[in-house]
């Protein structure tokens, strides 16, 4: 029997699900290999309430969503945290650095108490996940790597070295040499260093490598005349839940 696969999203832009639909060359083959039983963004039919694999996009920013996530965990054999918001909190964690009530009042004015919200948590802060797809957005190749690994029972090959490695292979001019700051030296590779390859700097969307030399990175940035606050902002754009952003 084909594995039952479901997609869910919590606080997010739903771009990760779109990246799955963007697998234009492979999606028909994938649809032949799995049975998609719940995918609200793309289909009306709900074919099962139990899942072999659930891909969950988004951060958890409401207590009611945390309950829903726990319920999905019970009904899924395998849960994959899908994308930066689920894995590391993503941009949703930026609001954690301001008092929550101030944020609510700024956006909703005198009706600020009408709408439920909470401090942003990653999916893994709420439930145990069996696998991760990094990035904002996730790279198509990594989505395919995880999906094919699930189908073949092997461990997905996800890099645990810095973006700099891929950036050098791409023969890019080092971002620091252009006078810009870059979280690349401590950010997990796997994106092919796509941002520096398009002339920009790494924005740290894949989170830190598991053993980052963050002090060296902070020294590197400080040498270029940036304040501690500037440096923290680099990390707090996507990775606000990590220790280094505190």
């Amino acid at each position, binding site marked *: 029997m084909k594995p039952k696969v479901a997609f869910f999203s919590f606080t997010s832009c739903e*771009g990760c699900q779109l990246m799955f639909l963007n697998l234009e060359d492979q999606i028909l083959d994938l649809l032949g290999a799995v049975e998609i039983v719940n995918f609200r963004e793309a*289909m009306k039919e709900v074919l099962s309430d139990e899942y072999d694999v659930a891909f969950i996009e988004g951060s958890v920013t409401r207590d009611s969503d945390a309950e829903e996530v726990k319920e999905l965990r019970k009904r899924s054999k395998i849960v994959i945290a899908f994308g930066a918001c689920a894995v590391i909190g993503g941009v949703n964690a930026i609001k954690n650095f301001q008092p929550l009530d101030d944020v609510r009042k*700024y*956006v909703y004015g005198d009706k600020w108490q009408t709408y*439920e*919200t909470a401090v942003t948590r990653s999916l893994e802060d709420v439930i145990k996940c069996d696998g991760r797809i990094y990035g904002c*957005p996730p790279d198509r190749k990594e989505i395919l790597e995880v999906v094919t690994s699930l189908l073949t029972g092997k461990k997905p090959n996800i890099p645990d070295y810095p973006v700099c490695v891929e950036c050098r292979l791409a023969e890019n001019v080092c971002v620091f040499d252009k006078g810009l700051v870059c979280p690349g030296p401590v950010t997990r590779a796997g994106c092919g260093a796509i941002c520096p390859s398009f*002339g920009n700097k790494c924005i740290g969307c894949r989170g830190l490598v598991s053993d980052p030399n963050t002090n060296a990175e902070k020294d590197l940035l400080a040498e270029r005349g940036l304040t501690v606050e500037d440096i923290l902002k680099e990390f707090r754009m996507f990775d606000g839940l990590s220790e280094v952003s505190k």
Partner: protein
Amino acid sequence: MSEVNVRVHHLTRVEGHGNIVVDSKNGQVVDARFEIVESPRFFEAMIKGRRRNEVHFITSRICGICAVGHTSTSIQATENALGIEISQQARVLRKIVFYGEQLQSHVLHAYFLAAPDFVGAPSVIPLAAKAPEIVKRALRLKKMANRLCEVLAGRHVHPIAMMPGGFTKYPTTKELKSLKAELLSYSDDVDETVKLFASLPVPDFAHETEFITLKNSKEYAFYEGDLYSSDTKKTTRQIDYRTLIKETMVDYSTSKHCHANRDSYMVGALARFNNNFELLHPRARRAAEALKLKSVCYNTFMNSHAQVVEIVHCFEESVALIDLLIEMTVDLNEPLAEPARLSGRGVGACEVPRGLLIHDYTYEDGLIKEANLIIPTGMNLANMDANLRALAPKVMDKPHAEQELLMEMLIRAYDPCISCSCHLLHVEWV
């Protein structure tokens, strides 16, 4: 007595989470609304204190489907606030990336989200078995749109090379020529799309309303123009948008409602078609004729057809603008334009796939101090409710399943983007 009682929890095949609630009592409609239940996201607060070169990276994450739209509008607001003047090649390039997103989003909506309803399928997945050629064509067109954004801006979902002041990487003439050849190879697929949608039966419905879009005299406005209302036939400068658009909070929605010259208005492909029909590419006008779409059209269900017309237009315009870039010979080393000042207020407005999008920023000493965003789906919410209320009495004699399907189709026709609509705004309306 005939009644209508429809409850759709978490409407499917739309971006984000929303519920439809329609009720009648003694044959009278007592309730008709589309509730937004997406979690609030607080982007206005999140960009406070951020620098000009990082704001759009954050606002792009409002929505994966309209990432280029948010990026473009965000960059415009920053450039207007800080007096950054961009080059002609940057402007042309931005427009092509923008058309790439229109194509991607419209193909996704028309084929994957809307079309299944017209043929009685729950989703595109059973269609892949029944009509594989149609699904393959949709995937080809989606890929074409993604390629435009990938070659020119790095990717569609959260573009990389677009920055205040220009691009961090410009395409070579060789890349542009090969992109044009690739694009042209999909021309037949564009024609087949028109034929397919011309063959789909559209529910009969008309609900007169106000249409608000950008407008300019040179082109079918997507990327630049003044705000224009079909009620007053007058334009309003972008910076003065608050004199035209008013916002109110409603208890049942985490998104605000908007109104202008009456209780509700519509934005999006149908609104653009109605307001700017004369400026469509001739091939797009022929497509409209084939689709039996005439300006002014008040049938909301035809919004997907207006999207198909825009697919033709954006296809042709992309080819023309790539030609223009080749002719101009792109300066690959052009640096990003610098700001003239570090403080000031600026508004950006674009016609993103779902309609008018406005970003309004105030910078102080190089950092964002105030931000306000108005999102197309937020603007359409009041009109969705008004449409549901208008449709409800017409469907009371129909079986419940058909009532529900028509209500779903009506809301889906707007192509709502709910993640986008939940960021709302810090506003002091006078």
